């Protein structure tokens, strides 16, 4: 099969684009189904195209974003603060808290006692990064990770914070990061959607996810995230009705195409031929999607790597394995959401289970991509929407406590995609409340992600209702220190 990258829209720079990427489409199985240029859904209304993409040579081609929905506590996972243990039960000094606004859940609390992690930390790898005992698998791959401890955001509630991280704005209706990348870079694969979403849920306190988080906003709906779900219909309406086999569907589509062609002869409207092409794409997706979703053929060592849960559809582990397959097949942006990280109370019990849910499979994904030689061109991101407070929410007892939302600092990690491996970036103060060094704003993070994909965040724009919109709104600086 001839290797090629098929992209949507960007004809002028295609040659240069092609010459700069080492090309590769993973699956030969999809090869026979490849027909160029059919996933380019058309719209009568798209405007404001940005010429000259990519803006510079990209390091990464694809992104897998392991979103930890609900905001994992950095104090129990990556941000080791022995001082908090020493000061157990003491009031957080007002000088540290400053004028930080509080959520309605702790605003009326009369006391803000500090609490350290219930779990121990150790240093790992050549980078000597601190990782808690809750993450034994992640600990083993720290030399592949860039751990950023100095992320901060502007929102203190889940909905606006999630929306901010995914769309660059706290208010709805803007395109999400995956939609922007799809718009900016087009499609490598003509049988699968460019931006896919996988959901899973842990046992911890749940917070909803919202389809607006994978919205195309004002971009063409071809850039919308397509949710792949467990079960027989992994993409909505994908499965043909009972009794309709491939052959019967083909027959139906052939008849349909002939009838549509008669209408074309009469009306001469190019929309008619465009419609026929979308039906053909749908037909190919009907084969390609179940193929990619089928994990039964994965060898034992892969199953072992991701853990036995990876064979249980709908789990985080299964979604991680699926993410690798989708990404390997050229899906530009694979977004996972794992719910259950909102530990306002009962933190020691819940977070241990949440951590167990995600630790092995997250690490396995990085290892798996690395062993396939795909980590260099795939940017993996792990993290939530904000951090959690160093003081306890609710009652502090000998073995139990909770933590409230905290926008001022949180930890994420990135791997691959031209990000420096084996690095810990940014520091918080000794109470883990404020950033002490190298703050990274959400827009800086987004600018960096786009940069790794060869996009200048100030130039990837879309004009809508007279305003030019960007993922990073009006700010954002690429964090050059973490780029390899």
């Amino acid at each position: 099969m001839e290797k090629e990258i098929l992209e949507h829209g960007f004809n002028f720079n295609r040659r240069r684009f092609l010459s700069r990427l080492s090309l590769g489409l993973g699956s030969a199985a999809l090869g026979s189904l490849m027909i160029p240029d059919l996933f380019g859904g058309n719209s009568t209304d798209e405007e404001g195209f940005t010429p000259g993409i990519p803006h510079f040579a990209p390091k990464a081609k694809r992104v897998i974003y392991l979103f930890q929905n609900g905001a994992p506590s950095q104090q129990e996972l990556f941000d080791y603060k022995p001082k908090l243990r020493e000061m157990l039960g003491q009031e957080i000094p007002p000088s540290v808290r400053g004028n930080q606004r509080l959520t309605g859940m702790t605003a009326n609390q009369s006391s803000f006692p500090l609490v350290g992690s219930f779990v121990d930390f150790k240093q790992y790898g050549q980078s000597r990064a601190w990782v808690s005992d809750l993450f034994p698998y992640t600990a083993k791959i720290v030399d592949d990770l860039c751990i950023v401890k100095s992320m901060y955001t502007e929102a203190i509630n889940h909905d606006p914070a999630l929306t901010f991280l995914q769309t660059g704005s706290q208010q709805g209706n803007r395109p999400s990061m995956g939609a922007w990348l799809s718009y900016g870079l087009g499609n490598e694969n003509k049988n699968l959607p460019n931006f896919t979403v996988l959901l899973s849920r842990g046992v911890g306190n749940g917070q909803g996810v919202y389809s607006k988080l994978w919205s195309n906003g004002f971009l063409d709906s071809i850039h919308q995230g397509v949710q792949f779900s467990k079960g027989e219909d992994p993409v909505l309406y994908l499965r043909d009705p009972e009794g309709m086999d491939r052959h019967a569907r083909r027959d139906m589509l052939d008849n349909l195409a002939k009838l549509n062609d008669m209408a074309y002869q009469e009306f001469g409207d190019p929309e008619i031929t465009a419609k026929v092409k979308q039906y053909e794409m749908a037909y190919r997706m009907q084969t390609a999607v179940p193929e990619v979703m089928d994990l039964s053929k994965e060898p034992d060592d892969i199953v072992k790597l991701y853990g036995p849960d990876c064979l249980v559809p709908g789990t985080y582990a299964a979604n991680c394995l699926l993410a690798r397959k989708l990404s390997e097949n050229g899906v530009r942006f694979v977004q996972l959401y794992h719910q259950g990280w909102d530990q306002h109370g009962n933190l020691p019990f819940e977070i241990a289970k949440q951590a167990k849910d995600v630790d092995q499979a997250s690490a396995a994904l990085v290892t798996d991509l690395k062993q396939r030689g795909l980590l260099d061109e795939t940017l993996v991101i792990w993290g939530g929407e904000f951090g959690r407070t160093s003081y306890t929410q609710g009652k502090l007892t000998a073995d139990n406590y909770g933590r409230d939302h905290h926008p001022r600092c949180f930890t994420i990690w990135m791997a691959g995609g031209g990000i420096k491996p084996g690095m810990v970036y940014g520091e918080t103060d000794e109470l883990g409340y404020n950033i002490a060094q190298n703050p990274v704003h959400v827009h800086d993070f987004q600018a960096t992600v786009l940069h790794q994909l060869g996009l200048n965040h100030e130039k990837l724009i879309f004009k809508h209702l007279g305003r030019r919109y960007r993922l990073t709104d009006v700010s954002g600086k690429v964090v050059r220190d973490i780029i390899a």
Partner: protein
Amino acid sequence: MKRFFYLIGALTGFMGMMQACQTDSATKADDAKLPDVVSYNFDIRPILSDKCLACHGPDANKREAGLRLDVAESAFKALQENPSAHALVAGKPEVSEAFLRITTQDTSLLMPPPSSNLKLSQREIRLIEKWIKQGAKYEKHWAFVPPQKPALPEVDQKDWPKNEIDYFILHKQEQKGLKPNEEADKERLLKRLSLDLTGLPPSLEMMDRFMADNSPNAYEKAVDQLLKNPAYGEKMALHWLDLARYADSHGYQDDGYRTQWPWRDWVIHAFNKNMHYNDFVTWQLAGDLLPNSTKEQLLATGFNRNHKITEEGGVIPEEYRIMYVTDRTDLFGKGLLGVTMECAHCHDHKYDPFSQKEYYRLFAFFNNVAEVGIESVIGGPETYAKKPLMEISDKDVKDILTFVNKPDTNRLIVSVMGDLDTLRKTHILNRGNYDAPGDVVEPGTPEAILPFNKNYPKNRLGLAQWLFDKKNPLTARVYVNLLWQEFFGKGIVKTSGDFGMQGDLPTHPELLDWLAVDFMSHNWDIKRLVKQMVTSATYRQSAVVPPEKLKNDPDNVYLARGPRYRIHAEFVKDLVLSSSGLLNQSIGGPSVKPYQPAGLWEGATSGRGLLSTYNQDHGPSLYRRGMYTLIKRTVPPPSMAIFDASNRDLCEVKRLRTNTPLQALVMMNDPTVLEASRVLAAKLLQENTADKDKISKAFRLIVGRKPREQEVEMLTAYYEKETKSIKKPVAEKAVSVGEYPIPGNVDKTKLAALMRVVSTIYNLEETITKT
């Protein structure tokens, strides 16, 4: 020296003209004629904006030579570099430095500089020349000048126009060397009309009647009949529900259920009784403030409470209250005034003449509501509306609010407007932050649009009066344009939510103004306006796209052919239900939960509240019109979203219109379509007719016209082939889709085969297209 430049300029202009005369009039129409009077707004400003203002515009940091060309004083004053010269001298291009610099052959002096890669066309140069000759008059932005009713333009093809609209459309076509299409054939015309006025395909009976009616006013009769159909109110309501961001859940993270649907029932009712636009909007903005306000007027104010309301424990109440007021203000700007006020939420507007202070003056009108940022966390029926609210009793429904389709005797509450007794102070919020209040402001309106009349009360009622002040330049234009968009596919101003500087210019400004003034002088009568549009010759043209029109006017800007595009998501469903005979025609009431792929709500919920699991409805509720499908904001109905329906998060005045493989999957595999195919097939099989007739009938019901011979043959052959190839057990499975019962006396194999044929017809491009 100056004389030399002038000569070159004149020569270039002359050569340009020579060239224009030689070119083909249809393809190079743009070069052939310059307007008699060159307009700054329409002809010059776009050129300046595109080619000049980057260096000679509002941005002081980028300005070259101290020269600004977007402001008259600066353009006419002595040049910084050469005080004896002026960029523009009214009436005299030959001494206007700007003109000399765009026509010089000295590339070191030429503007725009060659290094910018920008170049003025000959036509642009000639336009600028003519504009300067005519006095180089600057104008206020077109949309901020009240419309005047223009005279009807002269046309050559005098027998074409059917009403005033057509003179404007034809005049422009003739200028561009285009000719209108023939009138569409009657079948297609009726389908178009029926879809546009009711959102439903015409019934067989209506088709037969219309085809048989050869009277000259047959079409008009059909229009009147459809306008009287209660489905008209449902069709018209849809664009308003988008604009008013109506939904059945509160939004935000828990996204609990709300009972705002009685407001939606009122909207349908208002359109059906042809409430005029000024009253329609005044009630919604200020029904509670009207003298002797009625319950119906109060219900109308639900409009301003349709926004999202948080139920997330732990939010800061004031932050959210400010968001609600912001949402109302932005909707008022975008939906009713067609301007992007939201840009001035954090700073002075970058393009339009609205200051941040003016934003907060407008904000002040909506800032006195007796509401809190969070009233309750997600819970039971008492949380389905938030204060201020009204209760609708069974007696109300019997006596006054008869249009509210209340199905049971449960307590029914709706969020509506109601102000505090005291005045809440409105501050300018620095950078738009709720916790950074600045100066206190009084309620007021943007000066550039229309100053607020001192006689108006300084509340929402006064704001409504200001909105419908005949001197308000925007209100009528914006709504006329919205309706034009509904019937012709795109607005006369394509950016229907932005009439500001950055918005598109109207393609037919005189027509827009004529319609706006006519609309106002007929007391904002919506049905009359709709009728004007659909009875025009412009609307009635065939939608055939001749190759030369596709080439010269691919986007159909000049409307030399009829509108042809896919119908809205909700109407796709309506078409399927209606043509199969499944449609439940009841109007209004609580929203319903028809078939939906399993697990969507469950997979994305916080686990709290009534909407955490999807309990599908059964029976007649499955067959309600698409607009009654429950909209849970965080997980909107998937088949609707796939066809570009609004998620109702914020005010939306224009839907995208896309064509994707997911849409093909919906039409092929959504149980709604499959069940309708099966039900229609069963019905046809029970009729004592030939196979061909059954298929022709299905085709007529679904596509809205008789099939061609070739089409029937192909579909009949397909039917015969499927009848032979489908095995009995397969047939059993195939027909089991949907809950509607299968009649006992129907052969399952034939049913399965005919079902496939019907389903194929549903999948035709023409079926869900307005043709």
